[in-house]
């Protein structure tokens, strides 16, 4: 375990606390986006807004002391950060990127094939959920937390798979969409269901599961380890429910809108073909 000697004071300005590296990555992402926006096709207002929010989430989750707190002191902080990175950031990001920007990369056949493989619903539903659930095994969790390389690697994997999972729900490239609206709703729902066991087992555990949090600098503690653990599980569930719920609702209402539009078409055809009423 890294030095617990680090006291509260060092938290607030040290490179670990502010993850300078992640800040750099974030800035790079913004620059790339801006380049595209200016040189390729403009992003719409809604997409710009979504992207801004996604980057704000990113910076808050990865670059603020939240990440540090999550690793050192508080399971609930860690859960909060994770939820932001896998449940909020990816969907805002995907909504914020216009679909025709992907065309550049899709021109390369191997990239296209890789994409298609990685976005198969069966792959995505199992990938993220399995990795995420597995992560919360005490052994896996503690090991990952104590070895920085494993830790970064696993989190990167989680990030990629989370993007895959959200891809099927939000389908930025409509032409490649594999799921009908109804299927999408089932998919979102199914994902939420699959994630429940992991959260439930954490919330209802009767002892502290993770060694990582069993001896923390008391100045960084704000809840007892058990309460902290339970709060973490609850937070994770709530944020997950919220983000999935919102996407579920928007998908549902998008479906509804499409259906009502179909209605209008058919009604127009009636009045067109049978202006005086009558039989077929």
């Amino acid at each position: 375990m890294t030095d617990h000697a680090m006291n509260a004071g060092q938290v607030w300005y040290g490179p670990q606390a502010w993850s300078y590296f992640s800040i750099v990555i974030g800035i790079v992402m913004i620059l790339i986006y801006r380049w595209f926006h200016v040189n390729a096709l403009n992003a719409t207002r809604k997409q710009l807004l979504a992207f801004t929010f996604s980057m704000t989430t990113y910076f808050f989750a990865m670059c603020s002391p939240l990440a540090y707190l999550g690793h050192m002191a508080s399971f609930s902080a860690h859960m909060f950060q994770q939820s932001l990175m896998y449940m909020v950031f990816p969907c805002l990001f995907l909504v914020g990127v216009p679909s025709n920007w992907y065309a550049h990369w899709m021109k390369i056949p191997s990239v296209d094939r890789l994409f298609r493989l990685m976005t198969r619903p069966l792959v995505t539903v199992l990938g993220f959920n399995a990795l995420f659930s597995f992560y919360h095994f005490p052994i896996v969790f503690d090991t990952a937390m104590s070895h920085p390389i494993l830790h970064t690697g696993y989190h990167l994997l989680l990030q990629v798979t989370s993007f895959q999972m959200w891809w099927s729900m939000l389908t930025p490239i409509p032409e490649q969409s594999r799921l009908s609206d109804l299927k999408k709703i089932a998919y979102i729902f199914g994902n939420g269901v699959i994630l429940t066991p992991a959260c439930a087992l954490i919330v209802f555990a009767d002892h502290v599961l993770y060694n990582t949090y069993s001896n923390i600098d008391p100045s960084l503690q704000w809840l007892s380890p058990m309460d902290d653990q339970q709060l973490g599980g609850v937070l994770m569930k709530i944020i997950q429910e919220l983000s999935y719920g919102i996407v579920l609702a928007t998908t549902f209402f998008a479906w509804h809108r499409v259906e009502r539009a179909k209605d209008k078409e058919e009604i127009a055809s009636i009045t067109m073909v049978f202006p005086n009423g009558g039989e077929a």
Partner: protein
Amino acid sequence: MASHSNESHAVDYKKAKSKHSAKLHYLTFSLSMILTVISFYIVGNIIDPAREYAITSWTFGLPFITLLAIVQALFQLIFWMHMNEKGHLFPAMGIALGGFIAFTAVIATVYWLGW
């Protein structure tokens, strides 16, 4: 009456497709067997009830064999029960919902029986 040539094409197509499916079914069978053997082996020979937190303890073993059971169940569900084919949206939803409610019932009863 369909002409013979059409029918035979249909039969050939079906034969080809079903050979492919048969492979998946055998794969599911083998996987199920392997997972079952692993579960039994772990419980019979590996797990040491005396230890509390090591990888050979029940703390790891219990969730692990549960995971194996779930994986096996999923494979059987998806391949043997043809859930990977078209037109299985509602059946999938039905089983998913049923499983979810069953799981909720189990969790609540196990944790909250007032003992």
